[in-house]
């Protein structure tokens, strides 16, 4: 069942347009992450769903009900803000129970709901403290607790982890995922961090400049990016990208030629300018890859820098004048300046049209 639906949603600030017609259907219980560089309109979109920002054009519906003109309190949503927005004059208990108090629920029901939420998030010890006496991670937890107390139809998160340090962030990421499994509600989550998006999402909505670039599961965006932007944004290290020209049944990258991958063969014309992309995982020294069979080609490259990461080592090399990265599994020490033969997995490579940036063979 569709829980949240956006139809051609537009936001204008004066004459300037910040969101240019978003279409999105979100299923009940789904964890959707809006991701994109900062300023791309993620928060604006989220705030239009919340009712904190007027919708300039288009339609937002929640649970089958058009909510364009409803105030936030009538949309049955919860929101966790980047700076938590805890009520500083109330204790943790009062913060958690505020929405139920406002709704004039009976006292024993409030106590029960608050205790339940506190139990889920491990807040029992902190109930009588004021927000000022809490650490960043604890405040984050209270903010989440305040959101779940009301059992809303939809949870909205706006960069909830960006004020935490790296360690706490990965810890809270796990907690949010657990929370989703426990409460089983629809979640719309905004972040600019692709790692957060990849690890949390059932479905990622990748935005740029107020438009959706691609919607799909984390794996779809990782393996089948529809354009250069998506390819560069998702994945770490970023995808290697080399400018090239189609020549017969090969792509010329300057002095190096690589065969055209079979997936796009027949869809390229001679002389076409393309961008050839592949991930570090798919460029591995012979004998140090995950998969040596299949459609591969071999490249001789000089490694000029290494980054050992334990189970694997990142290798930096230059190909056709551009800096590229490869990956070595079961690593052995590699000296800078060493020449290695690499397998490039052609069936995992991407070819983009240089003029439009769109992936070839995927539309």
């Amino acid at each position, binding site marked *: 069942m569709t829980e949240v639906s956006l139809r051609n949603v537009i936001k204008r600030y004066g004459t300037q347009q910040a969101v240019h017609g978003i279409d999105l259907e979100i299923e009940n219980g789904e964890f959707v992450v809006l991701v994109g560089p900062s300023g791309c309109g993620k928060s604006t979109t989220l705030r239009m769903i*919340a*009712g*904190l920002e007027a919708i300039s054009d288009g339609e937002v519906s929640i649970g089958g009900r058009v909510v364009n003109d409803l*105030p*936030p*309190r009538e949309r049955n*949503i*919860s*929101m966790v*803000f980047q*700076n938590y*927005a*805890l*009520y*500083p*004059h109330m204790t943790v208990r009062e913060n958690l129970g*505020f*929405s139920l108090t*406002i*709704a004039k629920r009976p006292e024993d029901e409030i106590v029960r709901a608050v205790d339940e939420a506190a139990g889920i998030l491990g807040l029992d010890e902190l109930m009588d403290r004021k*927000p*000022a006496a809490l650490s960043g991670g604890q*405040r984050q937890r209270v903010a989440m607790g*305040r959101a779940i107390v*009301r059992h809303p139809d939809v949870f909205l998160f706006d960069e909830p982890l960006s004020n935490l340090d790296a360690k706490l962030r990965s810890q809270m990421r796990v907690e949010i995922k657990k929370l989703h499994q426990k409460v089983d509600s629809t979640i719309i989550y905004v972040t600019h961090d692709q790692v957060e998006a990849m690890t949390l999402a059932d479905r990622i909505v990748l935005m740029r400049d107020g438009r959706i670039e691609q919607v799909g599961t984390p794996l779809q965006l990782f393996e089948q990016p529809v354009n250069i932007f998506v390819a560069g944004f998702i994945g770490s290290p970023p995808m290697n990208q080399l400018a090239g020209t189609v020549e017969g049944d090969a792509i010329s990258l300057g002095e190096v030629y690589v065969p055209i991958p079979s997936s796009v063969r027949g869809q390229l014309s001679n002389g076409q300018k393309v961008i050839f992309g592949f991930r570090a995982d798919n460029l591995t020294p012979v004998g140090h890859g995950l998969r040596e069979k299949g459609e591969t080609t071999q490249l001789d490259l000089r490694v000029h820098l290494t980054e050992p990461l334990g189970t694997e080592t990142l290798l930096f090399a230059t190909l056709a004048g551009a800096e590229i990265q490869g990956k070595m599994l079961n690593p052995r020490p590699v000296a800078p300046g060493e020449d290695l033969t690499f397998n490039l997995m052609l069936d995992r490579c991407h070819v983009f049209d240089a003029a439009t940036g769109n992936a070839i063979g995927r539309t």
Partner: protein
Amino acid sequence: MDRNRTHRNRRRVLAWMHFFGLFIVMAIICIPGLWIVLNSFRPTVEIMAKPPVWVPSFTLDHYRAMFGGAGEGGVPVFHYFRNSLVVSVTSTVIAILIGMSGGYAFARYKFRFKGGIFVGLMLFRAVPGVALSLPLFIVFARVGIIDTHFGLILVYVAMNVPFTVWLTDGFFRQIPGELHEAAEIDGCTRWQAFWKVEFPVARSGVASAAIFAFLTSWNEFALASQLTRSTGSKTMPVGLLDFTAEFTINWGGMCALAVLMILPALILTFIVQKHLIAGLTFGGVKG
């Protein structure tokens, strides 16, 4: 060892200088007030003595006379006190309500000519009150609200609103907008979000503004002396003038009334001082 000792000595000297400096400053601030209190308990001869008598003898004559009948130097203290209280409290409440709304609007909303209006309000404060007294006198006399509580309240509200707007605007500005948004998502109307979240958080700021407004009205003399005439509307500062006759001034009585004037202000300030300090060192909200 030796170095340690000189260091410790230097510190001690500095501490004493610090203490002495503070003492001088506090003396400059406090001695006039103290002198008023002392004088109110002294016989007139002692007040006028030259050189001043530091160790006072103690008498309640001035208070007795002040509360006494009109013939023997008494003044209608209770009337003046009541007038002052009615005018100050009413005008403070009104000024805070209007000023707080204004401050909130300036802090949260965008509207046309916002900057201009704000500067205009502040400029209004630059006009000295006395300069307004004659025009006000004429207008009030025409309208028929001269010598009434209402007239004085009107003037004090007008005087206090700009300052209250300016002060509360600053306090509301420091409260992140997400706070009322969170409240609205939690089920509040915009109005509830203000009263249940933003107002309590800004409470210290509003209390500071209220104290300032109250003290301004309570102590105001220049306009009140022009706009009030009778026992029914004269405030305490104006009442002080009752002690001046054509050739003499009853300093003792004046001081006694002044003490009565200072006391409520002092008590009130003391009661809300916790808020006042919290208000003046605002900023713990963000967290």
